[in-house]
């Protein structure tokens, strides 16, 4: 049986009824990995033995009647999350062989609920990138089309779930890094409200923007994962102490009384006509499900990329100062003075994109430029945040494309950083405003590449997103469609 193709909810049902064990399910996932991993390259670390031990343990707990909410579920996570028994590279040479002394809070939560952690997934180095091509340990490929990007920075997480190499995964989203690869690989991906999910143990890129979230095969699984990972954590002083609703409960409600806003600025120049067609027809489906649809305006959208590429590198330049070759990570052993050791370790350990962003950030924060760049960007960030506050006075969620185009060929935008930055234009604003956003599969283009729809809502209104996404999923007719890989 192809158990690997099950969703979390389906597998949990089969485990609960005794038709299936976690060991059988995990073995099925591992054999699937054997079949398709050469083609997909989504893993940096695969813990075959550990996974089977955890699966046996999960089966034991279930027999004893103490099964957690994810008991026995094979799940893999982006290599940006600290795992106490597994190396955590963050896609960087500078963290090669780094084994964290503790688990990230979200990993702890997965383990408490009985999840089986299968491995760590490929990503752009320090989550900086939109294609995962900046990964120092191999570039994941889009399961739907060979030679095409899986997106990024959580490209391994999206490819892994799309290829059925795990039942679900976790990623991190600083400017679209969950939603964009989810869209390009045809899976569901959610960036929660800033502060909804603990960042403790998430390797920091830009601390005011980073958020952990799930990538799953369908919306119900996304809601289940959100139930598990959400909540206040005293170890993350920016997490918010607010009760966590049961996200699975509200899915099956229609959309009567819900107003969908369509932001005119998100349908501008450069939008692929096939993407636009899928999104427009998705909006019609939401209307069919009972929603009211109206136009809204987010007038500062065109400034998002500029704001982001100052604020994110500025925060990164500070966060990445910790990689100095002293306490962990790569050290150049030949350097004979301390400063030389810092310089050589960092220069050899970091890749090009990371160096570029550290330099932009350092420049934007340096004496004489702070007001012109960082302060100015932080003021425009306020205007962007206000745009959303105004829009959410008129509608419950805004619906748009996730990316202007479907996936592109590996290497196509690799030499032009700015061109790649501009492809993030539709996802960045959610991070700048701190609001939740998700991507749900809605269609395919003529070449068979997936196209997702983005939904964004006010702070802590994840429920309306999941509810709208579930209704869309019921009508879009793409759920359960699988890429043609690993077929006999």
């Amino acid at each position: 049986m192809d158990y690997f193709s099950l969703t979390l909810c389906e597998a949990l049902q089969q485990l609960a009824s005794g038709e299936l064990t976690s060991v059988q399910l995990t073995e099925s996932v591992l054999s699937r990995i054997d079949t398709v991993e050469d083609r997909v390259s989504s893993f940096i670390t695969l813990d075959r033995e550990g996974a089977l031990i955890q699966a046996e343990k999960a089966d034991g707990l279930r027999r004893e009647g103490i099964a957690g909410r994810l008991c026995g579920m094979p799940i893999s996570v982006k290599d940006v999350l600290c795992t106490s028994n597994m190396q955590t590279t963050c896609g960087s040479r500078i963290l090669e062989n780094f084994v964290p002394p503790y688990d990230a809070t979200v990993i702890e939560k997965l383990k408490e609920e009985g999840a089986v952690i299968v491995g760590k997934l490929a990503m752009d180095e320090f989550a900086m990138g939109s294609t995962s091509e900046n990964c120092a340990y191999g570039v994941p490929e889009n399961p739907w089309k060979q030679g095409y990007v899986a997106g990024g920075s959580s490209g391994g997480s999206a490819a892994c779930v799309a290829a059925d190499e795990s039942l679900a995964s976790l990623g991190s989203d600083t400017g679209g890094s969950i939603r964009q690869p989810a869209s390009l690989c045809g899976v569901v991906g959610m960036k929660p409200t800033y502060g909804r999910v603990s960042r403790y143990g998430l390797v920091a890129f830009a601390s005011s923007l980073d958020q952990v979230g799930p990538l799953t095969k369908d919306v119900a699984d996304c809601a289940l994962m959100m139930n598990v990972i959400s909540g206040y954590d005293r170890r993350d002083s920016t997490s918010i102490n607010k009760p966590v609703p049961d996200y699975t409960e509200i899915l099956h409600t229609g959309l009567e009384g819900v107003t969908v806003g369509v932001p005119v600025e998100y349908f501008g120049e450069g939008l692929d006509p096939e993407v636009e067609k899928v999104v427009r027809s998705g909006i019609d489906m939401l209307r069919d499900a009972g929603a009211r649809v109206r136009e809204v305006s987010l007038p500062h959208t065109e400034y998002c990329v500029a704001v982001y590429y100052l604020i994110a590198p500025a925060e990164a330049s500070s966060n990445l100062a910790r990689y100095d070759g002293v306490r962990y990570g790569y050290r150049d052993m030949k350097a004979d003075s301390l400063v030389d050791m810092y310089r050589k370790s960092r220069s050899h350990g970091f890749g090009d994109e990371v160096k570029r962003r550290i330099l932009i950030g350092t420049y934007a924060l340096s004496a004489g430029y702070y007001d012109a760049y960082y302060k100015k960007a932080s003021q425009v960030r306020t205007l962007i945040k206000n745009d959303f506050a105004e829009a959410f006075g008129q509608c419950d969620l805004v619906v748009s494309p996730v990316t202007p185009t479907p996936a592109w060929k590996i290497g196509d935008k690799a030499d032009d950083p700015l061109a790649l930055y501009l492809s993030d234009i539709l996802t960045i604003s959610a991070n700048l405003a701190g609001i939740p956003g998700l991507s749900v599969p809605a269609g395919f283009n003529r070449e068979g590449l997936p196209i997702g729809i983005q939904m964004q809502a006010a702070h802590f209104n994840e429920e309306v997103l999941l509810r709208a996404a579930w209704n869309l999923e019921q009508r879009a007719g793409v759920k359960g469609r699988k890429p043609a890989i690993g077929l006999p």
Partner: protein
Amino acid sequence: MKITRKEVEHVAILARLELNTEEVARITAQLDNILSYVAKLDELDTEGVAVTTHTQNIANAFREDEAHESLDRKKALANGPQVNGEVFVVPRVIT
């Protein structure tokens, strides 16, 4: 030009990065391109607009000042590239 080679070299010193001549040339061009793009923000009058450094209104996050176990020394040193069992070892700082 928004940024010169000399400025890139200076910023690299601040960021503790070493760049060779070829890298300085390439990165200067790329940074110039990016900074020319972000100059777009100058179109907006932000006089009197408050800055947003954080999207949630969190005041000081205090906790009880209670003693608890901290990370075990052995564990803390386990990832050190050079350690002597008690501390991290670095190249001599004072000669």
